[in-house]
């Protein structure tokens, strides 16, 4: 089984503040990994580095076999990223977001069919030509997932995709994760919602103060017992 995300010794510092410290992460093809932990644990920072929007202070990052630090554009072409905040240009419509992404990614004609299908599944079909500034928080999250997934990336990075999303939206997101995983993509999900992390992923990595505190198969963190173990890992 080949590895699509390979992170070694990742460190990110913002001046004196160390956000991520010596993180190793491996996500094989066709698998999904969840990053969980308290606020400020380093989950979003790790995903931003993987998405190529934040340069690391140290360490190596390979995405789909490509050095994501040296060959940033090539790595980005293989990634779909849903950021933790907003993620949408406020005065552009969802369709304009898709057109822009398709053009910058150099997608061949036909992407529209997949995009329309995803928009319908995420119940955004009626809002496709409205500016996203008028969207509710949940709609914005759902649209961000659509943008991250519509080009069927080899690596899907979802930062808080379930935050404020209704049950149907959560279901659609879980379906997208599963579909891409089955296609052979690697999925990394950052979330505070442990039950959803367990449902979506095979492995859960607990980050604490920028470091990996524990890594376990998702089944071990399921249920009440798993939740108790998770809480003990947070402090």
């Amino acid at each position: 089984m080949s590895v699509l995300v390979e992170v070694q010794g990742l460190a990110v510092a913002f001046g004196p503040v160390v956000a991520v410290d010596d993180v190793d992460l491996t996500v094989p093809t066709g698998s999904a990994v969840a990053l969980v932990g308290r606020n400020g644990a380093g989950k979003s920072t790790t995903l931003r580095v993987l998405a190529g929007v934040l340069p690391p202070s140290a360490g190596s990052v390979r995405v789909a076999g490509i050095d994501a630090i040296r060959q940033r554009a090539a790595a980005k072409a293989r990634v779909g990223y849903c950021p933790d905040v907003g993620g949408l240009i406020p005065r552009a419509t969802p369709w304009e977001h898709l057109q822009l992404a398709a053009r910058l990614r150099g997608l061949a004609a036909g992407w529209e069919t997949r995009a329309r299908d995803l928009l319908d599944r995420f119940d955004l079909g009626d809002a496709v030509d409205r500016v996203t500034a008028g969207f509710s928080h949940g709609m914005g999250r759902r649209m961000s997932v659509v943008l991250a997934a519509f080009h069927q990336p080899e690596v899907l990075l979802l930062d808080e995709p379930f935050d404020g999303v209704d049950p149907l939206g959560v279901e659609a997101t879980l379906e997208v994760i599963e579909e891409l995983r089955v296609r052979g993509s690697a999925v990394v999900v950052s979330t505070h919602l442990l039950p959803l992390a367990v449902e979506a992923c095979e492995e859960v990595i607990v980050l604490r103060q920028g470091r990996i505190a524990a890594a376990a198969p998702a089944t071990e963190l399921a249920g009440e017992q798993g939740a108790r173990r998770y809480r003990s890992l947070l402090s």
Partner: protein
Amino acid sequence: MSVRRRRERGQLLPLVALRWAMVRSPRSRDGLLLLAGLVPALCAATVVAGLLVDRDNLVFDIQILAPSVFLGFAALTVLGPIATGTGSELFPADQLVAYPITPRTQFRVSLLLAPLNLAWIIQLVVLSGVTAILTGPTPLVLPALLATYSYIVLVTAIGQALAWLVEGLRQTRRGRHALWATAAAIFVAALLAAETVGPSQILDHAPTLYLVLSIFEIAAGSYSVFFADLALMAVLTPAVVWLGVRACDWTVRRVGDSGAQPESRALLRREPRRDALSELLAVDRASVWRSAPLRRGGFVVALMPSAITAFASLDWSSLVLLPALVAAGAGLLFGVNVFCLDSSGALWLASLPHPPRLAFVAKTLVLGEFCAVSVALAVLAGALSADRRPTPTEVAALTGSAVVCVLTVVTMCMRVSMARPHRAELRTRRDAPAPPGTMVVYSARLALSTTLVAIAFSLLALVPWWWVPVLFAVPLSVRCVLGLFDAGRRWDDDRLRAVVTATVAAG
């Protein structure tokens, strides 16, 4: 004292203190303090200069012009807040929505921030000087200044009160129609009056004439009119503030349709663009023209000077100065923080595979065309209303001034956008690309640079050789273009880009 009363009294100072505490950089703090000290110093210097000036040569012209200058201040102070939806805010509305900020505090904040505007500050300095020239070298300049400053306070309060009232009316479709009808009626009446009576006759009968006469009375040692005027303004100012608070209260309570309407409307879908740059340009242009404060600001920056130049029939040497004002104004609308156009979408955009320089070029072009179109409209209106054909040198000087001012503004804006990004939504009419104090510093920097350029071209417009302004424009333009290339190279730096992206996207 009731809880409500205590709350009202205690809100303004903590808000101002918090805003001040949020100015983290010592350089910014020093700059703002310097600016705060510079304004009274400039007023004092202008007053001294006004007292010492050779009155025989100047005083007649100033006497004629003074009512118009005072009226100009009133027009600016009333129209400015109306155009910007009551002006600056200490904090974006969404950050204070959870707190019980009273209308009284809201109005007092807007009144307090009204002077944080370069045009207001310049007019304050000019009015101080005009008052000193009118009185001449006498200690009686002090009561005359008191009258002038009372007028300034009163007019500023009227501007804010009217702005809140207009903002309330804007909340509904019927109110907006009424406002447009009123604006159209005023415009037509002004045109008719200008045609039938003439602009100079209208200005000669401006109500501010009484204030100027009052200043003369003071200079002559007669205090009766002065005390009457002062008493009137002392009564009117708190009354206007009270009315302003009521207008603010009415506006914030009003349930309107203006906020949600444009954002809930389906837009016409456009065809995909042929390449990545065109696609980025289309999104950036949409971000500008779909933003209410930018649309309105663009209207004010481009069309207001056009209307004034058309009305005032400026001569060609004055027209050469126009691009400086318009380009700086256009740059201030969003150019000083141009990456905020992407707002929370900046992170997503940065994750797409494209050369970073492409996004930089798109932003530069959109800002450049916004400034250029604004300048072109204003210059065109002025040129059409000019009373004679220009000389080739005047055409060259005007073109050179326009090109160099636009390039100067774009270069400065791109640099400052990278150096000091801010989170800004530019969603409501009151949204600005940077905090109020920062905006004053930016406006001073832009206005100073462009005005110096325009003054140089206005002097060159007097020489008999048309190629001299062209020759002057070339190195300045090249310098700006090189500055843009340098800024573009710096944008390639991953760390700098990450900071800008994270700042404008922070939500």
